[in-house]
């Protein structure tokens, strides 16, 4: 059993898994049930001047029968009185001293920041998270992502918070910027102790094709919301890694964005997150998902021979380089396992229409490339006549085959193959050593 406890900005957490500031952390009763389920910490639903919400608030994308691969909301910060929230924070912290409570905050003026920070610290919050992320509603009032878009304002408010707080201050960043380093560096220059990212992405989740009103509808209208859920994980991973490898970002990061499983969490930690935060998956399946996150993450660390979660933090960052540094001489080709192939033809058509026409079929007319192996460098201005390949063993006729000379090693066939481990990408030995585009431009050839 590895040690899952982590220390972020001096805050000790029994594990890296926190509930993100969102509906699952709306009340003390919920947060306590979350802690009972195993969550190490909770970032409280954002506190501020209580607002009035609209109905409805949520929308989702389903894909091929899978529900909620993407999720969006137009809900605002807490609509509950601050007194009730602070009383609950105090009570929960008293009953769960080993779990982490971070107060997420969003107000406008310096005086308001001073007031709300004082009350949060007095209630017993272990840290603060300044919500500069919300891309809907609050930004129209000059808060949320409106702040993240103005690095100077962001730095200034951060410095106020540091001035008023004696607990660590996290700044939660919005992904709705051209370069995540701008708000990231502003937060650091404002003196933050840590960064949380990403908040939701500005979005319209869909359009109701009967009423022609965008979703989620509020009567006959809708507005843009914040997009989250499994679909945004790649965006979050990239922004995390960009900050994670930047030497000027010298503060710990709490990673957020589409995390549903221990694998997702481990990927975030490997790209530099110290803790991770989850919202959508809990909204979909409940607090209970943390059980397998803890269990699976533990087994993973054991298998990797790591004794602590800390050993994984940032381990994948050295592998995240610029394109120009990649090895142009590295070669792989696709290999199809004839015994596993079920003959669905998906690799054939994907390669034919979506890649390099180098997977051939024996089943019928084969439209793959039958000219010289030139990796597509030669002009291709005519449609070639299809070819009937000699099938050989009739039983094998459904198995497509790869023109290994023409294969460019793009992965597409492996990605679409529905059979586990049927198509593998295999490294081909090459005589030259590593040579990147940067090497070539330095050497004068391109």
């Amino acid at each position: 059993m590895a040690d899952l406890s982590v220390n972020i900005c001096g805050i000790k957490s029994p594990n890296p898994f926190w509930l993100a500031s969102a509906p699952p952390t709306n009340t003390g009763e919920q947060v306590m049930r979350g802690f009972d389920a195993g969550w190490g910490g909770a970032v409280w639903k954002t506190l501020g001047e209580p607002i009035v919400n609209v109905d409805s608030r949520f929308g989702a994308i389903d894909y091929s029968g899978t529900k909620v691969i993407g999720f969006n909301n137009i809900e605002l910060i807490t609509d509950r009185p601050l007194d009730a929230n602070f009383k609950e924070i105090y009570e929960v912290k008293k009953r769960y001293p080993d779990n982490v409570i971070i107060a997420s905050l969003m107000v406008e003026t310096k005086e308001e920041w001073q007031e709300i920070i004082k009350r949060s610290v007095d209630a017993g919050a272990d840290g603060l998270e300044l919500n500069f992320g919300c891309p809907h509603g609050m930004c129209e009032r000059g808060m949320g992502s409106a702040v993240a878009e103005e690095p100077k304002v962001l730095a200034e408010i951060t410095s106020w918070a540091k001035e008023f707080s004696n607990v660590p201050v996290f700044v939660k960043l919005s992904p709705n910027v051209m370069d995540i380093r701008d708000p990231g560096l502003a937060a650091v220059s404002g003196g933050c102790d840590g960064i949380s990212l990403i908040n939701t992405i500005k979005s319209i989740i869909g359009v109701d094709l009967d009423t022609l009103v965008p979703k989620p509808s509020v009567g006959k209208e809708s507005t843009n919301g914040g997009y989250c859920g499994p679909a945004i994980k790649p965006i979050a991973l990239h922004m995390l890694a960009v900050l994670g490898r930047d030497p000027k970002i010298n503060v710990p990061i709490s990673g957020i964005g589409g995390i549903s499983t221990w694998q997702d969490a481990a990927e975030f930690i490997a790209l530099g997150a110290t803790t991770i935060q989850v919202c959508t998956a809990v909204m979909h399946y409940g607090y209970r998902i943390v059980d397998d996150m803890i269990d699976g993450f533990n087994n993973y660390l054991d298998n990797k021979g790591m004794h602590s979660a800390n050993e994984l933090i940032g381990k994948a960052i050295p592998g995240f380089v610029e394109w120009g540094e990649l090895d142009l001489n590295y070669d792989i080709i696709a290999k199809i396992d004839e015994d596993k192939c079920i003959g669905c033809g998906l690799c054939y058509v994907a390669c034919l229409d979506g890649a390099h026409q180098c997977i051939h079929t024996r089943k019928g007319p084969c439209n793959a490339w039958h000219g010289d192996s030139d990796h597509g460098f030669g002009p291709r201005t005519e449609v070639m006549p299809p070819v009937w390949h000699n099938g050989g063993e009739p039983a094998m006729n459904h198995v497509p085959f790869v023109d290994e000379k023409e294969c460019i090693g793009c992965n597409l066939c492996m990605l679409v193959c529905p059979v586990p481990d049927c198509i593998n990408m295999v490294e081909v030995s090459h005589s030259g050593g590593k040579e990147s585009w940067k090497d070539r431009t330095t050497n004068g050839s391109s």
Partner: protein
Amino acid sequence: MSNKISPNYGLSSDRLEKQFSDYKPLYTEAEALIEANRCLNCYDAPCISACPTGIDIPAFIKKIATGNIIGSAKVIFEANMLGYSTGRVCPVEELCVGACVYNDLNSSPIQIGRLQRYATKKAMEIEENTGKKLFPINRRKSEKKVALIGAGPASLACAAYLALDGVEAVIFEKDVLPGGLNSTAVAPYKIQTEDSITEVNWILQHGIELKTKVEIGKDISLDQLIDEYNAVFIGIGLGAGRHLELGANNNPAVFSATNLIRKIKNDPDFSLPNDLNTILIIGGGNTAIDISRELAMLGVKDVRLLYRRSRQEMPGYEHEMVEASRYGVRLVENVTPLEIIRNGEKINSLKVKSTVSNDIFDFPCDWVVEAVGQLKHVSDISPEIEVDEMGRLVVDSKSFRTTNPKVYAGGDCINGGKEVVNAAQDGREAAFDMLKSWGISPSLHGEKYFKSFTSIFVQEMTKEENIKNG
């Protein structure tokens, strides 16, 4: 059309057959979506090749998944006008479902028949509710007219593709009910007559005229049809059930399987006697298994299927035999019937001989059902149309023309007894050959037709290429 069949063929609601839950019930929308989304959308999918009508199965399934039910049903009907009934009566385990790649992944294959039933049923409902036709009737009058003999699947398919291209199609049926075996001889647990008639009415509405109770050779001669019409399509199926010489023909307790199914299926007054204990079914084909299963489902205590060879040699499908066994049907292998032992009208037993040991023994029984094939209609056909030694009409395998070029044929009367789906395919091919011979390019063509056409074209192209290249 005025010739819509009135629903007086049905069984009263207290009949047990009405209480059977479908053995493959109509999917709900949620079930259909889950199943449709499971489909891998194979390229050049093996299920398509396994379908005698070559329905583009992945295409219609993916259209269900996107909620495009009308589009989905069109894909089916373009290849198979009897898509609704074949979704239920096709032996899918042997055809499309048996070819599904999921079988090779040791996962349950896509339930193509049930999805097909869902798409066609829903589309027919949408059509009825909105009044918008899936296939607008082609008003182009071709001046051509075709007579079709027999209102079974082959003629219905042929007539539909003709009517959709403006050809006048008139079907002559000697029975009171159209629909062929779907209406009269497929066991009710698979499809009840009213479902078959629903489909027939749906097909007829595309501008097809149906004349029932008209027998060719009696009420009107084949030669007269050949004279009056531009082409004639023969889709007469097979004749009455064959009887063995067991010394009790015309006995009310001895049935041919097709007759008994028809009684169960169409006769509101029919009921099984209360003291019926044992029924012996003679045969080993799918009809034999079907009637056995139906009788067992209807509560007959002892249903035994007697087959003269071993189970492995049965022409009936193994999966059907397994299902029948679940209802209590017992198979007796390697016995051949010799004689029905009776006491006046009352049957006592069936004397049988083991084909392995030659032992002779008696099976006590109340009824005997013979499922040993159907007679051919050879005598009904004009002498200028060739018939093979098995009694099947001889047709060209591509055009479906008989030896009289004006006369086409399809379905059981040319193949000796296959599936509904084969008849539907024959009818379609014949219709396309007629249309093409009249210079009409068929406005509907399913995937298979299109494919076979392009591959022939491509084959010729490459042949030329090869010749050119030496």
